[in-house]
């Protein structure tokens, strides 16, 4: 297929569609009012739900913070709280930036640039979330264990099956991180090319 053929196929399609006035006034008016779901609102919904869960857990830890009675448990508590509050808050603010893209006045070029940059930031945050989640096992487990069952895991010797479960979890997490990171690299590489194109 040659370029001229692309143009002629497009023109022919345009002519055909121009003759088909399929939409009725009612359908159009429904579109202006209907509360339908699109992909972006779905992403926002899941991220918001995730953030609410994180904030709720953070609140529970805050309320029970006095139960963390040694300095190292307190440090673990602070790290857990930071992880549960800072990261989701940053994700939500990034999503807000995407939602606030100026569709009416912004140019396609500027909007595209802003979108690609913000999307990259979102991906980076998700990557950090996964990595911190992996490292986080070290400080989240002692905090939850102390708050829920009043056990200091640093002073409790683990059983063999607990060691096995812990090792398997770590191995799975490492593979998951590697897989997610490769995906991230692939997406950001094409985004980078697009950004260069927009400069």
């Amino acid at each position, binding site marked *: *297929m*040659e*370029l001229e*053929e*692309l*143009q002629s*196929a*497009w*023109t*022919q*399609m*345009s002519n*055909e*569609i*121009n003759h*088909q*006035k*399929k*939409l009725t*006034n009612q359908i*159009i*008016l429904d*579109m*202006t009012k*209907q509360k*339908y779901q*699109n*992909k*972006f609102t779905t992403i926002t919904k899941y991220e918001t739900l995730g953030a609410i869960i994180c904030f709720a857990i953070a609140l529970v830890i805050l309320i029970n913070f006095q139960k963390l009675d040694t300095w190292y448990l307190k440090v673990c508590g602070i790290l857990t709280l930071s992880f549960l509050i800072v990261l989701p808050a940053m994700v939500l603010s990034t999503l807000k930036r*995407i*939602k606030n*893209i*100026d*569709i*009416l006045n*912004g*140019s*396609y*070029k*500027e*909007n*595209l640039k802003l*979108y690609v940059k913000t999307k990259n930031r979102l991906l980076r945050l998700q990557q950090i979330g996964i990595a911190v989640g992996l490292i986080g096992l070290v400080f989240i487990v002692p905090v939850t264990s102390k708050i829920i069952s009043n056990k200091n895991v640093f002073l409790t010797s683990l059983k063999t099956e607990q060691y096995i479960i812990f090792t398997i979890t770590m191995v799975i997490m490492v593979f998951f991180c590697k897989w997610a990171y490769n995906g991230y690299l692939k*997406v950001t590489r*094409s985004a980078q*090319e*697009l950004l260069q*194109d*927009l400069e």
Partner: protein
Amino acid sequence: MQKEEVFTELIREHQALLYKATSIYTDNKEDQEDLFQEVVFQLWKYFDSFRNDAKITTWMYRVAMNTAITFIKKKKRKPKSVSVADVFSTQSDDKDDVLEERLKLLYQHLQHLNTLERGLIFLLLEGKSYKEIATITGLSDTNVGTKISRIKKKLKTNMTK
């Protein structure tokens, strides 16, 4: 005439433009319908802000393309053949098989382009001049020319593969 009437008339008048704009950025019927609705919703939302000093279609192209930016899904590994061809074939009583096949090919080639390139080639296929494309996209006239010739080369390479 009431605002609703003017708006529905406008959408009916330019629905082909919206079908085509939404087909460029999506690769299946469901996504296209979602994007189409989102574009109509955004046009309605900003309808009061439309100033008559701009051409209505220029305004529609801009809103449609800007809306599409945030809507683009992650690229699929294998480009599929596409929506508007389906919409078109189901709408038409006498199907043109040759045209349908050409449209499938056309959309397959377009799937290899990035978001910026898709937007530019869409406006070019719509018969817009470089100046109009520059107005809609915010690029300079010369930049439009350079990018379009690069896209043409890219398309040509893909077509001969």
